[in-house]
């Protein structure tokens, strides 16, 4: 796989930059998805109030981490 070569010269980000960007992107996507799906599932099992906030936050961090890891791998295997 080509690493930093390409028609773009200096503007081509390095491999580690791409992995980092993939992780950040995946983390953002995972946080947003976790906020949505976590709210539903926590409401469904009957959490309310402060407990709900904690549950949603935990789901958000978990899915953000999972997504970020997978996205970073996905970027990593393509450079």
């Amino acid at each position, binding site marked *: 796989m080509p690493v930093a070569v390409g028609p773009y010269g200096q503007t081509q980000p390095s491999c580690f930059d791409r992995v980092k960007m993939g992780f950040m992107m*995946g983390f953002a996507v995972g946080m947003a998805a976790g906020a949505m799906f976590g709210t539903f599932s926590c409401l469904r099992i009957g959490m309310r109030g402060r407990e709900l906030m904690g549950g949603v936050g935990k789901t958000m961090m978990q899915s953000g981490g999972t997504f970020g890891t997978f996205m970073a791998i996905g970027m990593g295997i393509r450079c």
Partner: protein
Amino acid sequence: MSRNFENATDTPCSVFFPWRIVDDCGGAFTMGAIGGGIFQAVKGFRNAPSGMSHRMRGSLTAIKTRAPQLGGSFAVWGGLFSMIDCSLVKVRGKEDPWNSITSGAMTGAILAARNGPVAMVGSAAMGGILLGLIEGVGILLTRFASSQFPTGPQFAEEPAPAPMSGPSFGDYRQYQ
């Protein structure tokens, strides 16, 4: 994306039509296998009975049993997603984020088809929302990146670079 979890526009469909599907399928398998390996290693390590050799063996067993499964399901998702995405590009004649959102939803629906219509709707909504989020974050990231690099717009005029060497962002510019 991904390419189920990644941006779906690295390789253009119209030029390398069938190869993008194979590419996505294999990439998704690799991604799922590696990611599943990492997570299952931790899980197997924690769930095994105490003692270092037990933990190592549990970790290895978990990786061997679960990581290929996860890779396979990722590959199914990625391959079907890519097929539908390319078909939509062909049918609609344009490439925009709606293609991947629609194909994410359709992939979710098709893969849940054996569980009944309710599961299909739920799975389709999940796929569509997920792909919509990914596309939205990709567009935001492109805006951010193009504001950082003032010479950025030359990306867009590039007529399809060699497959898999193109920048992962910057392809979105044509959608705006």
